[in-house]
């Protein structure tokens, strides 16, 4: 574990393997909520919180429950259950503390449960930072950091997209391309420009 591994995780999670534009995780929320910047940012923050927390929780579950008892095949079920209940908890807390924020999140907060970005990051963390069931050095910290960087990449893509789509509101677009088809084409062009990062080497 050194500074280099942190920097390379940062670059690869935010830019090269951007969670939305190159791994296609969390695409549904990306297309659906990126119409305006404000809700897009709120959603990104919610996703960031849930991803980081679930990276921690799933790491402990995998390390201290699934591996010692030889239950790694229950990974999918246990992770998704934990994430679902955690999201439920966050929803209750947000509703209690800030009704305004709760209104902004709307139905998307419960939908974080089925946001592939959260679950996908947990699975990827386990795949990357465990070797044959044993954690590599600093695996917990690297997992958390990776979760944070993935969420940063998500926020980045969300903000880029919502900024562009806000401007598009005033443009004259062919009727058939309105909304979603055009959103995909824009995402494609952003993703194409992200290809340029894939040349980074360490």
């Amino acid at each position, binding site marked *: 574990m050194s500074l280099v591994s942190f920097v390379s995780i940062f670059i690869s999670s935010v830019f090269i393997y951007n969670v939305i*534009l*190159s*791994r*296609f*995780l*969390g*695409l*549904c929320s990306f*297309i659906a909520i990126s119409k305006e910047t404000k809700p897009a940012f709120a959603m990104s923050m919610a996703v960031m919180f849930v991803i980081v927390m679930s990276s921690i929780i799933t790491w402990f579950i995998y390390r201290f429950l699934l591996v010692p008892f030889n239950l790694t*095949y*229950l*990974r*999918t*079920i246990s992770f*998704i*259950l934990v994430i*679902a*209940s955690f999201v*439920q908890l966050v929803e209750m807390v947000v509703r209690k503390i800030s009704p305004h924020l709760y209104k902004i999140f709307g139905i998307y907060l*419960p939908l974080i*449960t*089925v*946001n*592939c970005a*959260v*679950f*996908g990051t947990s*699975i*990827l963390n386990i*795949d990357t930072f465990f070797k044959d069931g044993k954690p590599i050095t600093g695996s917990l910290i690297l997992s958390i950091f990776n979760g944070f960087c993935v969420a940063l990449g998500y926020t980045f893509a969300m903000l880029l997209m919502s900024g562009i789509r806000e401007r598009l509101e005033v443009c004259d677009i*062919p*009727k*058939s*391309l*309105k909304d*979603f*088809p*055009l*959103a*995909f*084409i824009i*995402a*494609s*062009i952003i*993703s*194409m420009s*992200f*290809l340029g990062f894939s040349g980074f080497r360490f």
Partner: protein
Amino acid sequence: MKINLKEFLKGIISENPTFVLMLGLCPTLAISTTLANAIGMSFAATFVLLGSNIIISLIKELIPSKIRIPSYIVVIATFVTITELIIKAYSPALDKSLGIYIPLIVVNCIVLGRAEAFASKSNLIDSVSDALGMGVGFSLALILISGIREFFGVGKIFGNTVIRGFEPVFLFAMPSGALLIIGILMGFFNFLKNRK
């Protein structure tokens, strides 16, 4: 048992999960690089969809509405684990090329969406028809996209060269090509619908 044809057909065209409902886009785009992947994914997703729709429509009266989402997810995750183990056992190559997208079927919005919107309110036969229709609709969309991507991106169909001397457009094999194709196809289907 007779399949309800109306529920079956709606999943293929009028409520196609990919192009109309826009559910389950992540796997659609991520694994649609080759036709072989797409067909593997179609079978896996349809199996999970069918299994979870059957179980959920059978136990819908037993689940309290407050905890229905976690309960559905447990049912779905069970079927995903079954699928995952079967694919690992019988086709390691497919397991390798689909990678994390097999466990990700559990968060595929099609499965949970159909469980919540349909199976929890309908009887067994309707749910089976709905699952089969959605599965076929999803598979057709996946095969269409991956066919285009494999042909233009690698210049092959099922791994066989079709046109000799055809220079593949690398872009279509990349993630951005997938987004471009689905955007254009969606626009095209909208165009057809608007013209009627």
